[in-house]
């Protein structure tokens, strides 16, 4: 199979370029990550990329394959148009080859305070939730922070330093929706901003690429509904 992979080594002083590889691999049942590992093992040990769990749980191998943000480890090789073009996730800086600098992404994630804020004395065992309240969190807690959604969002491309992006907003809503959290008002205060939240124009690129099948646009819509309810 033919591959065309983005290469960049800041220490070499060369500009980023695309490098072609011809790999002898049977695509049957194999994923893009298998090919990347095979290329690194047999053709070019200098090729750099992140991977860890290799089964779509850790979210560390987000890459852009043929123009779409995906997790390399769960994207089948079969059916991909050749040469298979693999690039780092767009907009965030490239550290080397397919490895991107996630600092900005994590900064937005930290900004939404992705943890439970509850000032009540801690109960002896655990903070209880009704099954219905717990069900509110489905479709939110599954996010693995791979960054596929945020880096596919044009609003993030134009204002990466100010717009929080779909991943951080989904996580923000995850704690707003949590019946055990007591900081809903502060969270909404933080989000009510022309840049942080309202750069989202609902084009749903995030929904299309999410490898976990989540719907950040819906979560953002719910945040907006809560803001409207609060204002009226």
């Amino acid at each position, binding site marked *: 199979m033919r591959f065309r992979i983005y290469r960049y080594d800041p220490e070499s002083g060369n500009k980023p370029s695309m490098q072609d590889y011809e790999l002898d691999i049977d695509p049957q049942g194999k994923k893009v990550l298998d090919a990347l590992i095979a290329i690194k093992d047999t053709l070019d040990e200098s090729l750099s990329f992140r991977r860890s769990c290799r089964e779509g749980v850790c979210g560390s191998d987000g890459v852009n394959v043929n123009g779409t943000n995906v997790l390399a480890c769960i994207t089948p090789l079969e059916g991909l148009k050749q040469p298979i073009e693999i690039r780092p996730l767009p907009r965030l800086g490239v550290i080397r080859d397919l490895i991107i600098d996630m600092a900005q992404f994590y900064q937005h994630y930290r*900004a939404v305070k992705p943890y439970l804020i509850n000032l009540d004395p801690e109960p002896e065992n655990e903070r209880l939730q009704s099954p219905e309240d717990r069900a509110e969190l489905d479709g939110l807690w599954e996010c693995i922070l791979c960054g596929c959604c945020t880096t596919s969002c*044009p*609003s993030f491309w*134009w*204002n990466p330093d*100010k717009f929080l992006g779909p991943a951080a907003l989904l996580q923000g809503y995850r704690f707003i929706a949590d019946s055990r959290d007591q900081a809903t008002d502060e969270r909404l*205060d*933080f*989000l*009510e*901003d*022309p*840049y*942080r*939240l*309202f*750069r989202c*124009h609902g084009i749903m690129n995030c929904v299309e690429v999410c490898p976990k099948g989540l719907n950040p646009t819906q979560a953002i819509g719910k945040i*907006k509904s809560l*803001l*409207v309810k609060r*204002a009226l």
Partner: protein
Amino acid sequence: MSSVAKSVGGAHRGLDMWLAQRASAVYMALFLPVFLFCAVSAPSLDYAGWRALFLPLGMKVAALLFVAATLAHAWIGLREIFIDYLHCPRCTMLRLSLYFAVAVLYLACLVWAVDILWSVK
């Protein structure tokens, strides 16, 4: 770090614009089919028919509100586009000037629409 101090709360803006854009869209979506129905069911659409359509005060007001909703919708949409694409450190003045210029242009359109609608007698 200054960025920490800045991130205390949101600007508490944006919601009104977002809501106004939706509200104006709802009005346009309600007005257009009603107006089209009125226009199609009019006996004739020559000058006399068209004039008769816009003669009642209700239609004048509804049409003016439609123009206002369209202009507000367009202004907010352009504002969104300016915020999206004009965000260099020195773009603030350019953006403000554009908001102002478009607002003046649209307000002029609104006044003009009043003149046109109420000239039908």
